C-alpha cells in the first residue's frame, strides 16, 4: 500500500485514466499550466500536453457544454469546476442537458462525463464560495453523485466514475485534499459506484456521514466509546446516488439508532432522504427518532466564530449520538 493524500490519489486516478483511454481529457479553469487551483491536476499538463489537459476561459456554462457535446460525440471528458459553487453557472448544461440526454434520445445518446471539483466550505471563504450542492444534483434523475472521504475511495471511485457511461458529479472537499491514507497499489484499483463502506464497526448506534463529516464522525465515535462505552458504527455511502440503502438499513436494524451528518443544509437534503428510507424500511427497528446534523440554514458567514457555529462539528455529533442513545 502507498500512503497518499486525497489530492494525489485523485491525481493518480486522472493520470491512469488519461493513459488508459485516449478519449479521456481534463478541462477546466487553471487545470493545465497552473497545475490546478488546488493542485489536483499537478503535472498532468506537463506530462500529457495541450490535447489532454486543457485550460479554459472563465466560462463555466461554455466549457460544461463543450464537455456534454464532446461526451455525446464519443469522448470521455473530465470537467473540473474550480469549486462546485461555480457549477451553478453551468447548471443548465448539467441539469437540462447532460441529465436528460439519454432519456430524451430514447437511449441513443449516452453522456459519459465527469464533473468534479471541491464542494462545501473551505476556510472563511464566505457565502458565495462555501456551498455543499450534492442534494441539488442528487434531486435530478439522470445524474450520479459521488463523494469520497479517503484517498483510496477518491482514487477508486474517480476511476470508476470516468469509466461510467453516465454523467457523474464527483464532489471533493477542499479541507480534505491534504488528508493522507493508504491506497492499494494494484494495477487497476477500482471501487464500484453505489456501494457504501463501513468506516467503523459498532453495534449501539449508526452514524451515516459523507465527505468532510466522515473524519468528524469517526472522532465522535471514538470519543463516545471512551466516555460512555457505547459502540458507534460509521457508514459512508460514498455514492449519494445511487444510494446504497441496503447497507444503511442493515446497519440500523443492528444498532436501532441513526444519526445522519452532512455539510449541506438540512431542508430537502440527502439526510432527509436517508431518514425517509429508514422510516420506510426500518421503522420498527428504531429505538429513537433519527437525528440530523447539518449546516445552519443560512448562507455561510465569513466571521470565524460564526462559520464554526454554522458547520457540523465533532461536539455536535457527540451530542446527537448521546441524544439518540438517551445518554
Amino acid at each position: 500500500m502507498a500512503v497518499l493524500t486525497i489530492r494525489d490519489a485523485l491525481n493518480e486516478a486522472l493520470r491512469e485514466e488519461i493513459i488508459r483511454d485516449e478519449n479521456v481529457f481534463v478541462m477546466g479553469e487553471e487545470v493545465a499550466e497552473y497545475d490546478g487551483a488546488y493542485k489536483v491536476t499537478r503535472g498532468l499538463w506537463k506530462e500529457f500536453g495541450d490535447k489532454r489537459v486543457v485550460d479554459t476561459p472563465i466560462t463555466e456554462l461554455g466549457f460544461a457544454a463543450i464537455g456534454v457535446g464532446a461526451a455525446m460525440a464519443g469522448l470521455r471528458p473530465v470537467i473540473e469546476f474550480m469549486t462546485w459553487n461555480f457549477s451553478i453557472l453551468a447548471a443548465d448544461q448539467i441539469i437540462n442537458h447532460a441529465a436528460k440526454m439519454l432519456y430524451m434520445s430514447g437511449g441513443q445518446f449516452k453522456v459519459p462525463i465527469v464533473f468534479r471539483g471541491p464542494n462545501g466550505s473551505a476556510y472563511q471563504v464566505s457565502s458565495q464560495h462555501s456551498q455543499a450542492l450534492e442534494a441539488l444534483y442528487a434531486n435530478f434523475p439522470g445524474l450520479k453523485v459521488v463523494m469520497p472521504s479517503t484517498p483510496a475511495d477518491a482514487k477508486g471511485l474517480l476511476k470508476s466514475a470516468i469509466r461510467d457511461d453516465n454523467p457523474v458529479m464527483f464532489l471533493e472537499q477542499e479541507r480534505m485534499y491534504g488528508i493522507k491514507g493508504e491506497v492499494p497499489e494494484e494495477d487497476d484499483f477500482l471501487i464500484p459506484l453505489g456501494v457504501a463502506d463501513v468506516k467503523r464497526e459498532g453495534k449501539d448506534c449508526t452514524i451515516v456521514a459523507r465527505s468532510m463529516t466522515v473524519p468528524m464522525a469517526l472522532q465522535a465515535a471514538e470519543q463516545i466509546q471512551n466516555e460512555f462505552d457505547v459502540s458507534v458504527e460509521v457508514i459512508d455511502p460514498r455514492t449519494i446516488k445511487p444510494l446504497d440503502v441496503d447497507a444503511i438499513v442493515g446497519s440500523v436494524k443492528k444498532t436501532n439508532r441513526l444519526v445522519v451528518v452532512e455539510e449541506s443544509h438540512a431542508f430537502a437534503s440527502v439526510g432527509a432522504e436517508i431518514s425517509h428510507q429508514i422510516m420506510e424500511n426500518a421503522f420498527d427497528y428504531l429505538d429513537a427518532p433519527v437525528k440530523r446534523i447539518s449546516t445552519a440554514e443560512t448562507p455561510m458567514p465569513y466571521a470565524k466564530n460564526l462559520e464554526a457555529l454554522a458547520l457540523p462539528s465533532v461536539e455536535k455529533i457527540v451530542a446527537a449520538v448521546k441524544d439518540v442513545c438517551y445518554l
Partner: protein
Amino acid sequence: MPKAATIQKTTASAGKVAKNGASKNGKALGTAAAPEFADVDDAIAEYNARRSAQLAAIKKSDKKLLREMLYQMVLGRRFEEKCAEVYRMGKIGGFCHLYIGQEAIGVGSMMMLEPTDMVITSYRDHVQAMIKGMSPESVMAELYGREGGCVKGKGGSMHMFSKDLEFYGGHGIVGGQIGVGTGMAYAAKYKNSGQVVLCFFGEAAVNQGIFHESLNMAQLWKLPIIYICENNQYGMGTSQKRAMSSRSIARKAEAFEMANEFVDGMDVMAVRGATRRAIERARKDGSPTLLEVRAYRYMGHSMSDPGNYRTRDEILKYQERDPIVLFKDSLKESKVLNDKDFEKIEQEANDAVDRAVKFSDESPYPSEAELLTDVLT
C-alpha cells in the same frame, strides 16, 4: 514590504505580452478612438506622448480635488499593503484580493460621481468601498470578520456593502455583478432618478456569457450604466491572450453598437476624462458605455497565489509606470503640490490605516445570534 512579494522567480513563458490583436483603426462610437496597447514599452511611449494632456487636465482642475484624488490613491495603496501584512499574521481569513497598482482606476472614475450614483464591483473591492465613502475602519473590521465591519463580519474581504453610500457590493462570482449592475441601471431608468451606475469587473469576466447578455440589454434599453473593465491582464494565472480570441475588450461593445473607449489605467486624469464623457452620455439619454481600462496587477491574484506564471521582470517593468508616481510627478511639475504636501498625505494615509487596524483589533467578534439573522427579511 508586500510589493510583489508573492512573486517567485520563474522561467514561465508569460514574458512579454503580445500586442493587442485588434486593428487600430476601429473607431469607437461617440468617442475619440483611444490608442490600444498591451506592451509596456508602447504604454510608456503612449503616456509620454499624452503627458501634456494630463498636465493640461491638472491645470484645469480644482487643487483641493486633486489633493483628495492623490490622498485616496495613497490611502488605497497603504491600506492594501497593511492588509497583506495582517493577512500574513492570520488576522484576515479566506480570500483576500488586493488592488495595488489599480488605484487610478477607482479614483479616476468614482470621484466623478454624485453621491447618489451607484457602484457595484467584484471581490477586489476594499479600495473602491473606501473611495465611495466607507470608512477604513468599517472595511478593515470587515476583513477581520468583526462586529464593527460594514456588514457585521458576515461578508469578509469579497463582500463590502453600504446601502447608505450606494455601494452595491463586492461580489465573488466572476461576472455576476455585471448583470446585477445592469439591473440597478434598469431601476434608475425606471424611476427616472438621474442616477448612473459604475460597474467594475476584470477582463476575465468578459468571457462569461453574462457580460454579453448584459451589454446587449443595456444598449437595447438605453440604460445609464458605465461598464468599467479593469484589464489587469490576468485572471488568476491565465493571461488574457490565453483566454480571449479577440483581445480588444473596448471593441466588443461595437457588436452592440455601444459607445466605448480604451483608457490608460495608470493615468488617473485619463480615467477621469473618459468617465466624464461616459457619464454625460448616461445622464443625457441613458446611453451605456464600455470602458476598457488597461491596468496591471502588481500582487498575486489573491494572497495565496504563488505567481509562477509571470516573470519578475514583467512586474518590475509595469511598476515603472506606477500610477501614484506618475500622478505625483505631474502634480509637482504643475506646482499643485510639493514634497512637503506629499509627506503630509503619506502621514494622513498611514494614520488612517493605523486607526483602522486599531479599531479592528478592538472590535469584538459578531454575536452568535447574528448567525441566523438576515436570511430573510
